[in-house]
């Protein structure tokens, strides 16, 4: 491991100053479960690691009634251990509760999962279907980027030198809505998705028709994918096997997987279709309460 300096500033301004000073040779660290692995493997040669866990804004988790604000450093166990989030955002918990095992969840969070930008990230698709936004700050100000636009390739994001992810802002879900996420893995825990699907549906007041839907796919492309055509196909349609199967087929079309040690192209496309159908049904079930 290249010898790096350790700094643990208490403010965003100090953290941004250190990141700017070192350029791409400094990285913010939250749980460290990806950063330390990459530094140890010399995938990243760092001169400074900026521990962000002493910055209050990055460690806060709050629901102000208009939505949920998840600080960039909040670990997974705090997300799924929060009863308000469990009640209001179960789709986000579906993802946060399957990232690694208990040890990893003590440290790793959704902010780091997003910045690590793995195509297979279980935390990102639920945020995409919730229309979440990443709040990013740097020396010249703050900007917001939709989570579906955040990842630009494997381990690549819109973050530039000196940028710091502050929080993920999740708007309050509409009435009669529900969300769900699942993945396929050979092992129940401590595994990496062969394919994953997140779904958010908004139903009309009768609960019998879709008003809108968002569907996102993991591990079947260079980034998590928002399958817009699949989600949009449900708008205004009745909830039935036929409309759900049609959306699942469109989700399959939106997947562009590769064959690797975890699965083949054909298996992954098939998984996307099957899991999309299941997650639409689960989201509908949650929307109906």
């Amino acid at each position, binding site marked *: 491991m*290249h*010898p790096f300096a350790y700094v643990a500033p208490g403010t965003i301004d100090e953290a941004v100053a*250190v990141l700017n000073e*070192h350029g791409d040779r400094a990285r913010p660290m939250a749980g460290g479960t990806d950063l330390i692995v990459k530094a140890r493997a010399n995938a990243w040669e760092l001169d400074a*690691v900026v521990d962000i866990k002493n910055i209050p804004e990055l460690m806060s988790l709050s629901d102000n009634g208009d939505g949920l604000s998840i600080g960039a450093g909040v670990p997974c166990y705090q997300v799924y251990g929060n009863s308000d989030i469990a009640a209001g955002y179960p789709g986000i918990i579906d993802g946060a509760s399957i990232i690694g095992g208990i040890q990893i969840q003590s440290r790793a969070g959704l902010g780091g999962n997003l910045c690590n930008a793995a195509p297979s990230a279980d935390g990102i698709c639920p945020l995409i279907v919730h229309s979440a936004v990443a709040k990013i700050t740097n020396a010249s100000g703050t900007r917001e980027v939709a989570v579906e636009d955040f990842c630009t390739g494997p381990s690549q994001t819109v973050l530039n030198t000196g940028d710091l992810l502050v929080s993920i802002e999740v708007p309050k879900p509409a009435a009669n809505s529900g969300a769900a996420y699942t993945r396929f893995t050979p092992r129940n825990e401590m595994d990496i998705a062969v394919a994953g699907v997140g779904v958010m549906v908004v139903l009309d007041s009768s609960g019998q028709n879709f008003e809108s839907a968002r569907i996102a796919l993991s591990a079947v492309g260079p980034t998590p994918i928002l399958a817009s055509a699949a989600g949009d196909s449900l708008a205004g349609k009745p909830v039935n096997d036929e409309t759900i199967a049609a959306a699942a087929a469109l989700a399959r079309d939106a997947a562009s997987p590769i064959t690797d040690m975890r699965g083949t192209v054909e298996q992954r496309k098939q998984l996307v279709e099957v899991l999309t159908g299941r997650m639409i049904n689960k989201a509908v079930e949650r929307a109906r309460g």
Partner: protein
Amino acid sequence: MTTNSPSKVHVTTTINGQQHELLVPPYMSLLDTLRELIGLTGTKEGCLDGNCGACTVSLDGRIVDSCLVLGAEVDGKNVDTVEGMATPEGLHPLQQAFLEEAALQCGICTPGILVAAKGLLDNEPSPSEGRIRHWLAGNLCRCTGYDKIVRAVQKASS
């Protein structure tokens, strides 16, 4: 706050109830800090990437992989390792149950599994078998002794 050279970090931490003051290289893991600076070699190195759980310790009451924590991060925090489980009066009930159930073969995963299982039983004294297996999913045993491990944890639970 200087970042010009990776100078050592002054850390005051409580390990197994005892306060330690350390100068830690900023890139040294908590695992190496425990083993090399303090001489607590009960915590084992396995995969060094967060898959095996052999290095599990408790950090402020939450189990973590100490290979993925920096020693510099534990300033002001409580760290508990396998060395803190037994008392002069005897073994911890989990350690006693592991002996009675022969829940180990080579033993390298054992300290991490004991600390992880203690993290469960401290908060949930009577977990189901499924809950125990889920909780210990982040601990690998290369001798495939999982059934005996789960039975030992069940025996130690109330």
